[in-house]
């Protein structure tokens, strides 16, 4: 019924109140952080607190009154489809219609999925976009209401991101992907989005100057959890369609929209005060969200209340939850600690100890075993006298007597280890891959197959003695890939920060840095990081760290290239007498192409204009030339976007201090003033800037010239003062500066 609407009402606008609320769930993660647990099933069907992640997501959406959900599946789409068909959501009276959408294998990113949504014409109006690993009790309908309200006055507000306030050190906040949001406090418009990873570690956040200039109050926040809930307008998928290079929702789309001068769209942020929302985006957050659920932060989404799974749990002191309908058999001498969930029909033998863990249904925990902060899926057997610490153990695993599973281990479905196995921390095990085994094989793409073959091929080099004599496991070797992309959160070292059980992460990476020197060798160490507390080598990604003070020094290859391109383009414009508008468009395109900040373009333009003025002998002719050039080209400075006259003057001063045309500063400034490129107030504002005096520069000609220019400016202000005092209409402002 609703899909018919989809066909008819693409252009329909959003004012009707009774319009049904749609949601799109991206059920693929496009990364491999949970491997090998996810070699045979999709991540969104992994259980968290014994209910599949996808069900938690659906429940979160149901809480918001969503009526229609599209689930975009890529890998193992058949499994997801089955799971949806079997779940309680497909029964009558669930109030939510769930439509699984199979997308092509070639969907490699969230961006591709969005393009798919566009081509299929799934959404008819504003919709909620969430990831298939969301656990939330936020009233998203409230966000939708705010979003729609905003859309009534501002048609360009296309997206509202839901974020949750949390401390920087909050357990649920991802270490590996913790962006910086710059938000207008009044309108909660997101002004800038800066991705930040644990590795390479960011030392500087680069906030465009326009952001600070154009908004009265700006919040720069590093304490937010990005919940991955977006309220999108219907044009969002089409924007993805137009910009085929957008891959990631945040790093490409949000960043792209915000930095674009052409799109002129706004993105807003909704800081959720009440409620809980987080994504199970890595094994680390898997642990913290499990703990959040057990300590009831997600209320009423807790095991004894609005639990998405079918089992009912009884809540007892210390946040212990035991299945009610098919109770577990727990020995009298077994110790059950706080924040523990024990699934139905599970048997726990004498003297076993279970602390802060989730044990799935139909498991057996042997006598005297200790399960600490571990997450054990369905039907797993742990023998006697075993120890499992901070690990995730898949379903149907057998851990035989006397084995030890150290922190951070991931054990795939069906693995057998022991007896007496001793796993190293962060060991990853799976069963051998049988290529023609099942239909699941056809679901895999070749890429992943080769990956698994690699793992299997390298088994000979691995010492398997520690896995115990009866083991059937293959070991996943942890080695940095040759082509590590430091711009992506999936880089080798950054992934370490997302692992379960990583406590001393700084130390660990520090050590491993020594082995992987080649990866990071070209990066320089910053001197100014001595005040940083951690002992971890501070590497910076040279491109992303562009602090304002260093702008004019340039020094980067890309930057030089860009500069010469700008100069060429301007020369052409000067020579061929282009109109200012055309020249501005050309520059904008150039800027888009090479992705440089606005200030660079401006800098180049100011420099080019100054250099265009011929140096002449006579003072009068000289002045004529200056005025002529500025009158013709001065407006170009403001046309290229981001009008900021104070910056213009600063750039002029900077440039001229190192140029042969130092003596022309006063005249050029005056010409700027006359052609309205700058106003009187701007000159004053520039003059009062501390950097304008050039005191912070090293001694030398540049500093001297900066000082001179500043004095010229002072003169000029003085003169302007006199002018306004006596109400003269003097147009002749250039003076004895030479």
């Amino acid at each position, binding site marked *: 019924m609703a899909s018919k609407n989809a066909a008819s009402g693409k252009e329909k606008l959003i004012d009707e109140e009774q319009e049904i609320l749609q949601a799109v769930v991206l059920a693929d993660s496009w990364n491999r952080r949970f491997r090998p647990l996810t070699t045979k099933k999709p991540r969104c069907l992994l259980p968290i607190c014994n209910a599949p992640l996808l069900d938690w997501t659906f429940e979160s959406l*149901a*809480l918001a009154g969503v009526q229609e959900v599209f689930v975009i599946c890529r890998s193992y789409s058949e499994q997801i489809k089955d799971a949806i068909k079997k779940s309680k959501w497909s029964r*009558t*009276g*669930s*109030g939510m219609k769930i439509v699984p959408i199979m997308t092509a294998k070639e969907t490699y990113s969230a961006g591709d999925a969005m393009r798919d949504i566009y081509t299929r014409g799934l959404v008819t109006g504003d919709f909620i976009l969430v990831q298939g690993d969301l656990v939330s009790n936020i009233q998203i309908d409230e966000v939708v209401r705010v979003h729609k309200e905003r859309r009534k006055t501002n048609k360009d507000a296309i997206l509202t991101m839901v974020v*949750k*306030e*949390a*401390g*920087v*050190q*909050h*357990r*649920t*906040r991802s270490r590996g992907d913790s962006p910086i949001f710059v938000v207008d406090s009044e309108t909660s418009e997101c002004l800038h989005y800066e991705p930040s990873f644990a590795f390479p570690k960011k030392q500087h956040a680069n906030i465009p100057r326009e952001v600070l200039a154009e908004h009265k109050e700006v919040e720069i926040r590093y*304490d937010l959890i990005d919940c991955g809930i977006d309220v999108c307008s219907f044009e969002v998928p089409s924007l993805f369609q137009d910009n085929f290079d957008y891959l990631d929702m945040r790093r490409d789309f949000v960043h792209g929209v915000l930095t674009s001068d052409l799109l002129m769209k706004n993105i807003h942020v909704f800081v959720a005060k*009440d409620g*809980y929302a987080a994504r199970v985006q890595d094994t680390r957050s898997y642990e913290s969200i499990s*703990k959040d659920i057990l*300590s*009831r*932060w*997600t*209320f*009423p989404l807790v095991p*004894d*209340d*609005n639990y998405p799974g079918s089992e009912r749990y*009884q*809540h*007892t*002191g*210390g*946040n212990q939850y035991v299945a009610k309908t098919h109770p577990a058999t727990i020995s009298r001498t077994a110790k059950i600690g*706080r*924040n523990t969930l024990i699934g139905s029909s599970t048997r726990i033998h004498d003297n076993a100890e279970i602390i802060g863990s989730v044990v799935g249904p139909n498991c057996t925990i042997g006598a005297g075993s200790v399960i600490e902060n571990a997450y054990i899926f369905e039907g797993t057997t742990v023998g006697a006298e075993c120890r499992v610490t901070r690990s995730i153990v898949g379903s149907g695993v057998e851990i035989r007597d006397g084995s030890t599973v150290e922190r951070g281990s991931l054990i795939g479905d069906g693995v057998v280890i022991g007896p007496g196995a001793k796993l190293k921390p962060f060991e990853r095990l799976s069963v051998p891959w049988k290529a023609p085994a099942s239909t699941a094989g056809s679901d895999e793409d070749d890429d992943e197959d080769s990956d698994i073959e690699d793992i299997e091929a390298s088994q000979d080099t691995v010492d398997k003695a520690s896995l115990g004599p009866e083991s059937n496991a293959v070991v996943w070797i942890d080695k940095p890939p040759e082509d590590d992309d430091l711009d992506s959160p999936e880089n080798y070292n950054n992934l370490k920060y997302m692992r379960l059980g990583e406590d001393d992460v700084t130390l660990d990476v520090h050590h491993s840095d020594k082995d992987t020197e080649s990866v990071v060798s070209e990066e320089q160490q910053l001197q100014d990081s001595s005040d940083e507390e951690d002992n971890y080598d501070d590497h910076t990604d040279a491109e992303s760290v562009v602090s304002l003070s260093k702008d004019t020094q340039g020094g980067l290859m890309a930057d030089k290239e860009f500069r010469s391109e700008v100069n060429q383009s301007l020369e052409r414009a000067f020579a061929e007498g282009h109109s200012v508008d055309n020249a501005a468009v050309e520059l904008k395109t150039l800027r888009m192409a090479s992705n440089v900040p606005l200030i660079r373009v401006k800098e180049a333009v100011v420099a080019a204009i100054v250099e265009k003025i011929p140096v002449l002998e006579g003072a009068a002719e000289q002045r004529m030339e200056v005025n002529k050039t500025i009158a013709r080209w001065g407006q170009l400075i403001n046309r290229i976007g981001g009008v900021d006259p104070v910056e213009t003057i600063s750039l002029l001063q900077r440039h001229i201090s190192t140029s042969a045309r130092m003596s022309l500063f006063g005249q050029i400034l005056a010409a700027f003033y006359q052609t309205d490129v700058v106003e009187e107030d701007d000159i004053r504002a520039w003059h009062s800037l501390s950097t304008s005096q050039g005191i912070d520069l090293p001694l030398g000609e540049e500093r001297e010239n900066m000082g001179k220019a500043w004095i010229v400016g002072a003169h000029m202000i003085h003169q302007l003062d006199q002018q306004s005092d006596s109400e003269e209409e003097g147009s002749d402002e250039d003076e004895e500066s030479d």
Partner: protein
Amino acid sequence: MQAERGQHHRSVEVLASKLRRRQIVGSRTAALETLVVLRQVVSRARFSNFEQLVEIIRGVGRRLVEAQPKEHSVGNTVRKVLHHIREEYQTAVGQTGPQAGTSTSGFSISKFVLQGQPRRHVPAQKTEVKTTLKEDDPEDPDSFSKGLKPVLMEAIQDVLDELETVYDNVSKNARDHIHPDEIILTLGRSKTVETFLKTAAHNRHYTVIVAETGPSYDGREMAKSLSSAGISTFLVPDSSIFSLMSRVNKVILGAHVILANGGMFAITGSLIAATAAKAHSTPVVVCAGQFKLTPLWNLYHEYGAVDFGNPSDVLGFNEGELVNKVDVVNPYYDYVAPEFIDAYITNDGDHPPSSIYRLLKETYDDEDNEL
């Protein structure tokens, strides 16, 4: 038939999921919603004898209670409806039953426990046997339900009316309980208590002390509402309840659930207030509608019964580092044992805790205690 069943099934499911998601909270709202759903179910139900009808209603009740076992007023409403329906059924079907019942049994202590309900109980089973024989018409199975439906709707309407007037009926004797220039202490924001106090203010001049009642701080709203009604009101922090108790003449509390033993569940902080009152021998009076009476004796043995809520009311989620180190326990209710309570003021008169069980027997039928 199929479609019909699906239809009313649907309204039940919608309410069940709303209850489960806590989109409907508060005893009275839940009770009202339950009644609306029951009315729909009964009006569409097809049954050829009385047992079938009872089973349909019970089925709905079971489903709703299972969805949210902590909202007891849902189950209570279903029980109440069943009770009324039985009564109406008996009067509609034949007058012979009641006489037969009372004549055989009569009151005696030895039979009292067995029979449970001292008044008009026994007839129920007897007449049922008779009437089902009479009414279960094989030729026209619908005739029974057609004949009975208007009466049933009336029975449900009675319960609805009672719910709608519950605040006024609880408050009708307010002036007898509050004396001039008394100082009353209360907690939280119970609609019943609020109406009670406001009604008393028409005739009496008195002072109310409202404790803030963390972590919900409903007391603040309560204080605002009372003072805007012209009652002299003080808002005090929870910590000062004990020190102020010596000046307080009476503690008036609201209830979430009243148990058969005379104890009750009420908003967190009630136990502190009641204990402080006991220490000063200050009377504790509980205002509650009859629909809060729950035929359960030992709910307080169940750990989860006090409804542990979200820790974020107590500890902000943004206290990042603490969250990992602290386990926050945030029960929504306190269990207040019967020995702390002096009287219940209900819409069915005033009762000491020790006679609550009797009130229960009169309100519900024994066979419905387990839905």
